[in-house]
């Protein structure tokens, strides 16, 4: 049995490596032009966002339209950090977000432990406590960040420029992801208590609020470099095929490992039947938050990666209309199927951004969004459970261990066959 599992791992990782090497070679040898290279990377980014959403909706059953908002938060946060470093030689963005994320993260974990001992605290009150604490710590982080900036600048300047830039980039992507996760925790705490559709509407509202804030990022939030509705330019283009691929593999493995554990089963039980889950000792609220936070973490991560693909961000990318894209991807791929999500994400990028742009003749570009919904309708009408249903690749599939050969002899029911006449029945008759 052990050999079989490791063989599956071998095939999976070998296949991944092969895929990576082939694409990388094609890029290095200029067989794959920038257009297709970008599409592949966008496909991988969409796969990460959609896997996160599949965790929230496909596995945990919480209908969220907020994924795109967290994606936007990740994108703009990471972009701002690297922008400041590469254009202004300043690590201010990095230090503030880093300290903020760390302080708030520690505070959330600590408050959580304290609050777990208090019975009967409603979600809104808990939210108020976390919110006030995060607000205070956020202000503290701004001061700390300003203090620490010169230190960080000096240390980073000791390194060669390229290395320093890569380090700033990776930290930026990671802290942006954690920031998105922390915001999702604060937002999700009260909002997850709403019923399924109402939760969806509230998260849609979140996406729209984020978009409005980004439209006015220069005037209302005071981030001049984000340039509000004109779009942010000058972000270093650092997301190579290597980085997206690496993060995609990490996300797949983390998600798969989590789902194949007791935590994953608890997450899925919430989707299946909340009341039965509660009756089996599962803290439903806790697991809703857990999957929402991890899903948003993936969204933030994907956002950070996306920001450094084109070197250009525009609030219209984070329009709520586009927020349906990951939802479309997971439904097309099959809810609760990681394989389906992966395939659908790449297919979506190849088709919508690639093929349809190339196939449609000059002057018919607007037809792209006429053909796309028709395809969508057709797929939904023909396969309403998604293209893959609940199929999983062997590596992503949960293996049911074979039965032990012999049983504990003391543990055997008296009634080996359910319909056999029994002593109790005889007793009554």
């Amino acid at each position: 049995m052990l050999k079989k599992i490791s063989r599956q791992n071998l095939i999976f990782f070998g296949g991944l490596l092969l895929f990576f090497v082939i694409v990388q070679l094609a890029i290095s040898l200029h067989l794959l032009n920038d257009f297709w290279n970008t599409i592949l990377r966008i496909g991988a980014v969409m796969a990460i966002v959609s896997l996160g959403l599949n965790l929230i909706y496909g596995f945990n059953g919480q209908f969220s339209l907020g994924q795109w908002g967290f994606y936007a938060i990740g994108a703009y946060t990471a972009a701002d950090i690297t922008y400041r470093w590469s254009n202004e030689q300043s690590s201010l963005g990095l230090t503030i977000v880093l300290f903020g994320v760390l302080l708030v993260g520690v505070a959330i974990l600590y408050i959580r432990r304290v609050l777990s001992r208090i019975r009967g605290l409603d979600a809104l009150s808990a939210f108020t406590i976390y919110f006030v604490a995060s607000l205070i710590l956020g202000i503290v982080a701004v001061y700390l960040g300003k203090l620490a900036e010169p230190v960080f600048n000096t240390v980073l300047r000791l390194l060669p420029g390229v290395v320093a830039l890569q380090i700033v980039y990776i930290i930026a992507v990671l802290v942006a992801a954690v920031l998105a996760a922390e915001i999702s925790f604060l937002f999700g705490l009260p909002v997850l208590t709403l019923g399924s559709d109402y939760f969806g509407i509230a998260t849609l509202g979140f996406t729209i609020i984020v978009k409005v804030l980004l439209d006015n990022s220069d005037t209302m939030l005071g981030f001049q470099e984000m340039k509000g509705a004109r779009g942010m330019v000058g972000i270093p283009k650092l997301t190579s095929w290597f980085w997206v691929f690496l993060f995609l593999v990490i996300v797949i493995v983390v998600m798969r490992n989590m789902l194949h554990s007791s935590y994953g089963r608890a997450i899925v039980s919430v989707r299946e039947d909340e009341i039965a889950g509660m009756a089996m000792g599962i803290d439903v609220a806790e697991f809703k938050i857990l999957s929402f936070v991890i899903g948003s973490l993936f969204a933030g991560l994907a956002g950070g990666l996306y920001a450094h693909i084109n070197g250009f961000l525009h609030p219209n990318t984070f329009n709520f209309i586009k927020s349906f894209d990951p939802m479309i991807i997971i439904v097309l791929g099959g809810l609760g199927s990681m394989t389906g999500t992966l395939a659908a994400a790449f297919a979506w990028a190849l088709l919508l951004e690639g093929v349809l742009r190339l196939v449609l003749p000059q002057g018919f570009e607007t037809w792209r969004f006429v053909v796309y919904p028709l395809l969508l309708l057709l797929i939904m009408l023909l396969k309403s459970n998604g293209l893959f249903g609940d199929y999983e690749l062997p590596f992503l599939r949960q293996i049911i261990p074979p039965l032990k050969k012999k049983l504990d002899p003391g543990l055997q029911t008296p009634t080996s066959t359910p319909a056999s006449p029994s002593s109790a029945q005889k007793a009554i008759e």
Partner: protein
Amino acid sequence: MNETTNGRYILDIQELSMQFGGLRAVNNFSIHLEPHDLQGLIGPNGAGKTTVFNMITGVYTPSAGQICFLNENITGFESFEINQMGIARTFQNIRLFPNLNVLDNVRIAYHTHAGYSLNDAILHNRHYKNQEKELTERAQDFLAVFNLQDRQAEIAKNLPYGEQRRLEIARALAAEPKLLLLDEPAAGMNPAESSSLMDLIHFIREKFDMTILLIEHQMRVVMGICEKITVMDFGEVIARGTPSEIQSNPRVVEAYLGPGAAALSEKFRRRKVE
């Protein structure tokens, strides 16, 4: 934890009431269960039996009264906490995790004592593997006890009705409770199936040293296995006693068959004796 100060009762419910708007679904309900008891709760439809279960397991918060389990007041606790303290239940209209396989349905019950952290799970380290293997084996043992071992890969919703019932009981027991609440376990079973269910309940009580409270409509089952029966009607307790006492209680007959029926049944009994 079992040995408490006046630890006679494992479950001690006093003057429990539940109000839904203007409707008093349960009024001044009290019941006591000693360890190893097997008690029944019966009554006509709408008498408030399931509401009592829902209050014990924290689905509803009682409007008045208190529930003590192992001498701790658990009134107002959340469902999952109550389960973790040792009360497991089944549902009137079976509530399995329909799209999961049989094995996972049982393994979910182990999650609070899985013994590894989220980090262990994500890293898939040795500790995770050992613990996971152990709990899987325990779950498979449970399935074997309930004669479901060959069904472990089956999706729960595809099981036949009787096996779904057994799986639900297996899942409840897998959480290693001290008190088991069964809500109409024999509903929809034919006489042969309900007889084997009675055997199963007896077996569970002996094997796991379980305290059981059950709601049941099939009089044959209740009278056949319960030592003590509480009868409810319109949210109130109208009788309590051994099966034979209950059978001859005129108030019970009246509750089930309507006023006048008690007198009629008395007449019939006399005629039979004569």
